[in-house]
């Protein structure tokens, strides 16, 4: 079914790459064992900043997972043939991203052994319950779609008819996973930084920029290292999607910024002050936030200028991805906790163990993508040859 045997064929570089990833995973895992033993005190988290890099990264990768819809939608709903070679890559990216998300939640738990309590005591009033349902459902949908259509390709037959309804369900489902994730934050009365209706639209816009950016980079890497052509047209269309999603994201951020700055309500204003200018002597996020903003502007300029958008596409993708990784994968969560409801400014910086655990999860995601894409490539080359 999973054709995992296909992943065992590879050149020297393939094995070196996998070994590197595996060693990062092992390092991360060792630090996780330490965290399990000593408690979350080994992270930079504190009573006031009780969620940090783990939850922020979770949020960012939910977006990456949701963005698979940007290839599934044109391919299945609009029958855009040029996405034929890239749709499955998007689905496998989504699968890896959902696994990464779940791991980020898992490592953030104080009592991970009790995780099944979420299922044993289902609480429909909690958004986290719905997040669990939407994420696992999305994982299942994408896994079925990707493996069944790949199997069909391998057997040189047509994919079964029931794949199409699944693909159609996965479109609103992708939107739902990121909306529910935004609702996790935007429904909290005491956290004015997140208490805004633009949060879910902003999450979706940034997701549909960051996800395609990563997918384009992956396609370019496949072309370079595995001489697999995902299709020039597909990449071009993905770039257009990314451009407008990124422009929309920048617009949403500006809309939010205007509302907060012009109304001048201190409770809302102080979070922005902390992120972009520093508050009460705490400046550690300022440089990151401005980097993110400069990258966003540079990317939009590169992508909207006709002479540059083709030539600098890889650079623009890197800028989009990094900009959103900093904005959503760091500032958005930490910024919500500083200042605290009692107005105190608490310094948060991820510790070495925390960063190693994050790197381990990233490496695991990269490992999964590598293996999945290897299977796709072996199947397709076998069929073609």
């Amino acid at each position: 079914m999973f054709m995992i045997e296909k992943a065992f064929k590879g050149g020297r570089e393939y094995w070196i790459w996998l070994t590197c990833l595996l060693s990062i995973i092992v390092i991360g895992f060792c630090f996780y064992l330490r965290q399990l033993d000593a408690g979350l005190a080994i992270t930079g988290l504190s009573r006031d900043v009780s969620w940090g890099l783990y939850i922020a990264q979770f949020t960012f990768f939910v977006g990456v997972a949701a963005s698979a819809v940007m290839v599934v939608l044109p391919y299945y709903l609009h029958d855009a043939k040029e996405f034929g070679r890239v749709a499955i890559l998007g689905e496998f990216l989504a699968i890896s991203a959902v696994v990464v998300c779940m791991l980020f939640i898992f490592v953030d738990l104080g009592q991970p052994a009790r995780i099944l309590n979420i299922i044993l005591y289902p609480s429909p009033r909690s958004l986290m319950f719905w997040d669990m349902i939407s994420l696992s459902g999305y994982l299942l949908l994408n896994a079925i779609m990707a493996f069944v259509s790949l199997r069909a390709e391998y057997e040189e037959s047509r994919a079964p008819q029931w794949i199409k309804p699944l693909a159609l369900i996965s479109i609103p489902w992708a939107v739902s996973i990121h909306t529910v994730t935004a609702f996790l934050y935007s429904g909290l009365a005491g956290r004015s930084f997140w208490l805004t209706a633009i949060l879910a639209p902003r999450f979706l816009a940034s997701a549909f920029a960051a996800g395609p950016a990563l997918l384009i980079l992956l396609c370019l890497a496949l072309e370079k290292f595995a001489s697999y052509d995902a299709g020039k047209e597909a990449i071009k269309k993905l770039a257009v999607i990314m451009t407008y999603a990124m422009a929309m994201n920048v617009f949403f951020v500006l809309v939010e910024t205007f509302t907060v700055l012009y109304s001048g309500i201190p409770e809302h204003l102080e979070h922005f002050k902390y992120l972009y200018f520093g508050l009460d002597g705490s400046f550690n996020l300022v440089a990151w936030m401005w980097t993110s903003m400069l990258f966003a502007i540079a990317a939009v300029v590169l992508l909207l200028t006709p002479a540059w958008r083709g030539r600098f596409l890889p650079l623009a993708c890197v800028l989009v991805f990094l900009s959103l990784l900093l904005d959503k994968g760091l500032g958005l969560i930490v910024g919500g906790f500083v200042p605290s409801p009692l107005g105190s400014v608490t310094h948060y910086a991820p510790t070495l163990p925390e960063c190693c655990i994050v790197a381990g999860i990233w490496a695991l995601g990269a490992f999964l993508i590598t293996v999945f894409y290897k299977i796709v490539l072996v199947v397709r080359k076998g069929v073609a040859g």
Partner: protein
Amino acid sequence: MKITRKDFLRLSGLSILAAGAKQAVRAVEQERLTKSRPAARAVRWGMAVDLKKCREKDGCNACVHACNSAHNIPQFADRAHEVKWIWTEPFATVFPFAKGSYSTESDSGVPVPLMCNHCANPPCTRVCPTQATWKRGDGIVMMDWHRCIGCRYCIAACPYGSRSFNWQDPRPAIANINPEFPTRTKGVVEKCNFCEERLARGQKPACVDACPQGIFTFGNLADPDSELRQLLRARFAVQRQPELGTGPSIYYLV
């Protein structure tokens, strides 16, 4: 065993009847109970804190110490990993409306004892994905330290900063363990429980009994004749951020 269609239908019919009968009996019983119990028996625990009296004894921390030793609360040097059920903050920090206004200048530094507000509509219980925190019939917001998975969603949801997380094993940081109250493990959230263990024995909360000034008036908010309600009628009282719709049960007399 073989069940014919007729048997099956007969059995199903009987089951539905039995279930219906049970509901009816329960409803009748419920009505009898509510009739026999007068309305005044409804309980919602609450507290009034007299800041004027508190101010008279500067530097007193008796309530905090009493709570800490009654509930095995660890003392960590690192502020980041603090666990606290009751503590004090300056007036202007607790009540944002007092910030930067001249009218409350004199009060802005007055220490205000803070604890869980035992909200009527608690945001923390709403977000908990395992029902490890819930509101009791008498208004106390409870925590099950054995069910909590340590996701800290409740900490993000609480607008009052009343919840603490055990970032590490708390036991080594407890000076004298009180054997009558459980200690907690690392990785779970905890907070003020309004001394439900003392209420069950007919005592008042530890902070109330410990205060030399008698600033805390503990009582039943649902009973219009309680001492607490009389006090709230007589004095001007504020709650912390009632505009959030949480309905705090702690009132501050100013």
